[in-house]
């Protein structure tokens, strides 16, 4: 099965391990994710002001490209757009929802995007996790060659995969899609209350301290609940919860670092796709000693 795929900027720069492991895992499950031939940054955050038009240009242009792929015959009647980054997912999905309901805003956008084909509103924005759930986790389990036996994983959702209500991939109060996936991969799930707590998000640029405090609370709770490793689906959460652990260590004496990986890295590992594809050397807090101790690599 082929799908249009939107990587987003960070998956091409500091989160290559997320993209590499995701594409390889999807392929192993018989899914081909076709990167949009031409794309721009989605804007990363949804424009919340009611009169905003300008900030819709970026996400809507991306959606037009999916319709372009169908017009050009790269895809045939398949308007589903798969994302990996939680922020891209949220921004594209919300912008899509707004313009479909707001012809006036759509008209203004078309005026400005005069060089594009008009957006026909056919695109459906999805996250890879939704696609896996749709396929069935028993199918995922069948593909597992090296189960994550004995690995205690805490899935972390953050905000934008779950909120606001109606735009998430799962029930915002009791999500289970990542938990189900970890179980299908043979791992042990550690549920912890802060799995949907904000990592500090964009404050990482001007208020590292806010992020360090958030990361400290989230990670130490995961650790307390028995987790050995955290799995997530957003390159900004990843930066805040891994790179910023240096900051946490400085500010909160006694804090013990914990490896943070993308869920796709665990998937690729369990599918036996090899360490190279997983890009484990790119994770800031090295997960390899732990994985080695569990004989997983």
């Amino acid at each position, binding site marked *: 099965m082929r799908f249009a795929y939107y990587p987003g900027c960070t998956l*091409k720069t500091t989160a290559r391990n997320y993209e590499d492991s995701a594409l390889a895992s999807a392929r192993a499950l018989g899914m081909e994710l076709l990167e949009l031939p031409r794309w721009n940054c989605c804007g990363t955050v949804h424009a919340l002001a009611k009169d905003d038009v300008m900030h819709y240009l970026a996400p809507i*242009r991306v959606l037009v490209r999916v319709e372009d792929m169908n017009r050009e015959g790269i895809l045939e009647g398949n308007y589903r757009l798969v994302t990996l980054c939680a922020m891209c997912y949220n921004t594209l999905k919300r912008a899509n929802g707004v313009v479909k309901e707001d012809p006036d805003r759509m008209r203004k956008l078309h005026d400005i995007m005069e060089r594009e084909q008009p957006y026909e509103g056919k695109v459906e924005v999805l996250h890879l996790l939704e696609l896996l759930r749709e396929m069935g986790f028993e199918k995922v389990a069948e593909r597992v060659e090296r189960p994550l036996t004995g690995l205690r994983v805490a899935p972390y959702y953050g905000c934008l995969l779950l909120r606001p209500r109606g735009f998430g991939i799962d029930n915002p109060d009791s999500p289970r899609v990542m938990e189900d996936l970890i179980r299908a991969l043979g791992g042990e799930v550690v549920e912890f209350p802060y799995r949907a707590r904000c990592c500090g998000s964009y404050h990482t640029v001007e208020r590292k301290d806010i992020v360090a405090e958030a990361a400290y609370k989230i990670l130490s709770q995961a650790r307390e609940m028995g987790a050995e490793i955290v799995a997530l689906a957003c390159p900004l959460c990843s930066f805040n919860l891994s790179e910023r652990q240096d900051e946490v260590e400085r500010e909160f004496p006694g804090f013990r670092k914990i490896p943070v990986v993308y869920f796709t890295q665990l998937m690729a590992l369990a599918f036996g796709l090899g360490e190279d594809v997983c890009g484990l050397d790119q994770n800031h807090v090295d997960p390899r000693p732990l994985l080695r101790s569990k004989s997983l690599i």
Partner: protein
Amino acid sequence: MGEERSTVTIYVMGKAYEVPASLTIMKAMEYIGYRFVRGAGCRAGFCGACATLYRKKGSYKLEAALACQKVVEDGMYIATIPFAPAEKRTYDINKLRPTPNVLLEYYPEIARCLSCNTCTKACPQDLQVMDYVQAAIRGDIEEVARLSFDCLSCGLCAMRCPAEIVPYNVAQLARRLYAKYLAKTSEHLMRRLKEIEEGKFDEELKRLKGLSREELKELYDKREIRV
């Protein structure tokens, strides 16, 4: 078809002038009596010095062109932009590396790009400016270099960008990085440079330098052109 008008009306600084319809904006302005001491250079569309903005009567569109290339049209309101206020960041290309974040490091404001495409619409070279700014954000130095190859640094994209980005400076850094670190080395060039260094052509050059003007001319006229 009606009779073609031999003159058109253009507006410079708001004042109307009748000018011959076949002239470029630059020549029309000189025809009126303006003398360019800034904002003109090669007069052949290569140097990017004569950035110009104009609107046509009855249209809301603010259009952009090089004054030396664009032929006047009836009802043009013209403003030349002799200089784009923009800062070029200081760097030592030998100390940089073509890392994914290097363009954001020197020009972080590119992260403000709205994908509005105004830059692309302003580019007199018809470059996909928005696409290269976007490629810059995701660290694709090669793509920025490829898409911006024909850039003249005229400044029009920067004057029109609502995110206050200076695209051409970013592109120049990308092309420099590309040339220094990413482009495939030309083996022929390297071989020739080595030959020059080893003095293979010293003798011949010395001989040429010793020739008189007439001898040189004769040599030039008799040269062999191999296709």
